[in-house]
């Protein structure tokens, strides 16, 4: 399978280890990821809070380049980029006038013909669980994991085409295939606060705290994410949360592809596990005899 790959800004910076793990997993599974040449920022929150047309034009340019290179499918690992791309495609598909306008703005034809998939859907829906299972050499047996989806991968459902916006299962099924034990918990799709933690920390941190608390209450050993910003909030801010709420959270948080890479036999040195804030070392020690670390 061949996909145009849109890493987005985060995967070049705060979420660099996500990018590494994604590529390892793709290599093992025989998925070809071709980075969209000369891609630009999707505009994220900043664009759509300033100018509607800008918010559509930025992702449209990337998608138009992918189309020009003949790609029928675009893989987007970041949940925010995914949401922006999907919204753009839907808006353009719904309005021929907009299609003309956008194409004019970006100086390229954008037909909105290609299928846009989150990287989670590429692996979890398009690749085939049986195929993945064949590559598992180091099953993550006994790892009680909370699959966390956040909001942008699932809502609004008519745009995201999530399997179930209230209780999505794509990641859970993937984690099960690699031997882990996904738990049924209640905060799968609650918002992590995204960038709100910066301007309104009381609110943002409460949201993060509630997610960690719910995962912990169900005995999760770790949390798996499919978004670099969710990852950052849940991983980096545990210290701040503990300080604010007097809690003692130390829950390792992983990108779902990191856990897959581990199960495929890669070691932590092969990807960016050392870049995590909450150490996973003792957990991995317990789980797979430290082979990962």
């Amino acid at each position, binding site marked *: 399978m061949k996909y145009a790959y849109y890493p987005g800004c985060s995967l070049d910076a705060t979420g660099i280890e996500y990018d590494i793990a994604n590529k390892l997993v793709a290599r093992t599974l025989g998925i070809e990821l071709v980075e969209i040449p000369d891609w630009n920022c999707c505009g994220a929150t900043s664009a759509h809070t300033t100018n509607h047309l800008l918010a559509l034009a930025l992702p449209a340019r990337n998608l138009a380049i992918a189309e020009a290179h003949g790609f029928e499918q675009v893989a987007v690992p970041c949940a925010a980029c995914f949401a922006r791309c999907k919204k753009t495609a839907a808006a353009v598909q719904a309005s021929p006038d907009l299609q003309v306008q956008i194409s004019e703005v970006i100086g390229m034809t954008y037909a909105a013909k290609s299928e846009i998939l989150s990287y989670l859907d590429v692996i979890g829906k398009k690749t085939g669980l049986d195929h993945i299972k064949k590559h598992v050499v180091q099953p993550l047996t006994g790892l009680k994991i909370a699959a966390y989806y956040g909001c942008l991968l699932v809502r609004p459902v008519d745009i995201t085409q999530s399997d179930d916006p209230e209780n999505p299962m794509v990641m859970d099924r993937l984690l099960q295939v690699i031997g882990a034990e996904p738990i049924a918990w*209640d*905060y799968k799709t609650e918002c992590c606060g995204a960038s709100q933690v910066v301007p309104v920390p009381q609110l943002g941190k409460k949201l993060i705290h509630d997610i960690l608390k719910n995962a912990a209450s169900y005995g999760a050993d770790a949390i798996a994410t499919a978004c670099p910003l969710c990852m950052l909030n849940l991983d980096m801010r545990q210290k701040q949360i503990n300080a604010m709420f007097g809690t003692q959270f130390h829950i390792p948080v992983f990108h779902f592809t990191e856990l897959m890479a581990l199960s495929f036999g890669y070691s932590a040195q092969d990807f960016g596990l050392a870049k995590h804030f909450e150490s996973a070392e003792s957990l991995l020690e317990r789980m797979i005899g430290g082979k990962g670390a």
Partner: protein
Amino acid sequence: MRRIGVFICHCGSNIAATVDCAKVAEAARGFPGVVYSADYKYMCSEPGQEFIKAAIAQEDLNAIVVASCTPRMHELTFRKTLANGGLNPYLFEMANLREQCSWVHTDKEKATVKAIDLVKMAAAKANKNEELTSSTMPVHKKALVIGAGIAGMQAALDIADAGHQVVLVEREPTIGGKMPMLDKTFPTMDCSACISTPKMVEVAQHPNIELLAYAEVTEVKGFIGSFTVQIRQKAKYVDHDKCTGCGLCETKCPSKVPNEYDLGLGQRACIYKPFAQAVPNKPVIDPLHCRKLVDNKCGLCAKVCPTGAVNYQDAERLFTDTFGAIVMATGYDLYPWEEIYGEYGYGRFPDVITGLQFERMVNASGPTGGKLKRPSDGQEPKSVVFIKCVGSREPAKAKGYCSRACCMYTAKHAHQVLDKIPDAAVYVFYMDVRAAGKAYDEFYEATLKDGAVYLRGRVSKIYQEGSKLIVKGEDSLLGRPVQVTADLVVLATAMIPSQGSRELAQTVGFLPDLDGWYQEAHPKLRPVETPTAGVFLAGACQGPKDIPDTVAQAGAAAAKVCGLLSKSQLETNPMTARSNPAICSGCGLCVAVCPYKAIQLISLADRDRYGKRINRTVADVNHGLCQGCGACTVTCRSGAIDLQGFKNNQILEEVDALWR
């Protein structure tokens, strides 16, 4: 040649304000065949009708056009006027100047021109109308009632009290439907069982009612006055003639399964009565779980039965009978919320229950003996959250309609919690409070005074934290998110048509509405009849409703049935389809479009053009079933089918008149 009289009605100012009636009457005098015309304030009034009768005599009229309101309103009235005036009633034609003209236009000049056209068309048709005569058919003086909830029981009792025979078919092992499951009924808070179980007994003992419980209707043939119906009674494995209902078998049966009657909150044996006051008050064996029937082990019930009533070899029974009328009373089910409400946990949390489960729980004869207990740990809940409109008024997810009884029963439940647990906190999430009914709003107000906290907004999520349920929602009056910690959550789930009701409608021969509720013939004027003659509606099968409305409707349906059964013969509607076998090719298109299953293909002995004997297939219309809708006539390629009173040439005459 026809001598047509045209009568233009003012309908007070309804028509006259927008249409110049005198001018229309004057114009009518120039139409072919019209020899007399007049306008009058109220044509349907007694003087109006007398006026027509006098004109028939004086002007020697032999066809009449009245231009007034819709035929649905007064066609029958004027047909009778003709009959009284000595004319065949089908020589009458109606032009609708109200719904189709004055009510929908404002420009008087243009409306008058249109009115003249409408009358011109009606007069043209009157020229072609033919005398039609009804024939008669016999009425079997026996009614079938399907479903024995409060609706079916009430209808059966009313018909039986009027002296007619009734067969009452119920598919569960007991009659009663939902009403005896309830604890108390709003707004009077009288005990539901105390008013419903005596009715059940009355039904069982009524000399004119034959009760067939644990049975279903499998086939219906025929038409009004004479429906031939097949009923299949499931194997009970207990001979109810021998059984005394002592209950020993139930106490000895070693296999226990969740009791459907308690909606899974309690257990029952595999030889069981659904509840203590069940009617018939004798058990049946559950063939899916009984060890003897499944594995050929056990057999304890047969051993302990003092009268030898248990019969493991029992088989289902088929009955066939003929009825003059059928009453549908199949009630409702509740929306399977577990399938779509992921935000409420898809049924994962044991302490999230439905209103009907709550009824079983507060019911003194229910699984907890009337004590409010959390299903998870049996603790008394101190904080209870009610959520209304779960599946109702939710077009994006489930049903768009309002389920009507939930606002009131939720107020009742809130009141009951506060009554039983005075220090409890009760929250009700609502969209609106719809308490239209006698003493209903007062009841809701009293619940507020009791201390129930009403929060206007939807609940977005429920999840478990330790032994508590966290309920997150919105208070849309304050514009703020709210979070409530609850011990028990009760969902007011939408009413939906009972399982299998769509298939049953098909068997009986009519179509439900888009949501699956049984469609009445007219929403205002014929609320308890279906479009299929002789089939009537009672209770929640027609749409969500509470007990007072259900009982009122059941009485109305019974009155209609009694009216029908009081006749020994029925006049048939002569405006039915006729097929001309000479030009029918037997293609069967009409059979497929007929909503009343009134057309059959039959074999006709004929000769081909060489004189050889052949058998041809042709369409044959059953005039008892045909309702004269005309669907067949427009599908017929060769024009072999024609509708009496709406013949193709009559309609084309109208069209021609418009352009003449």
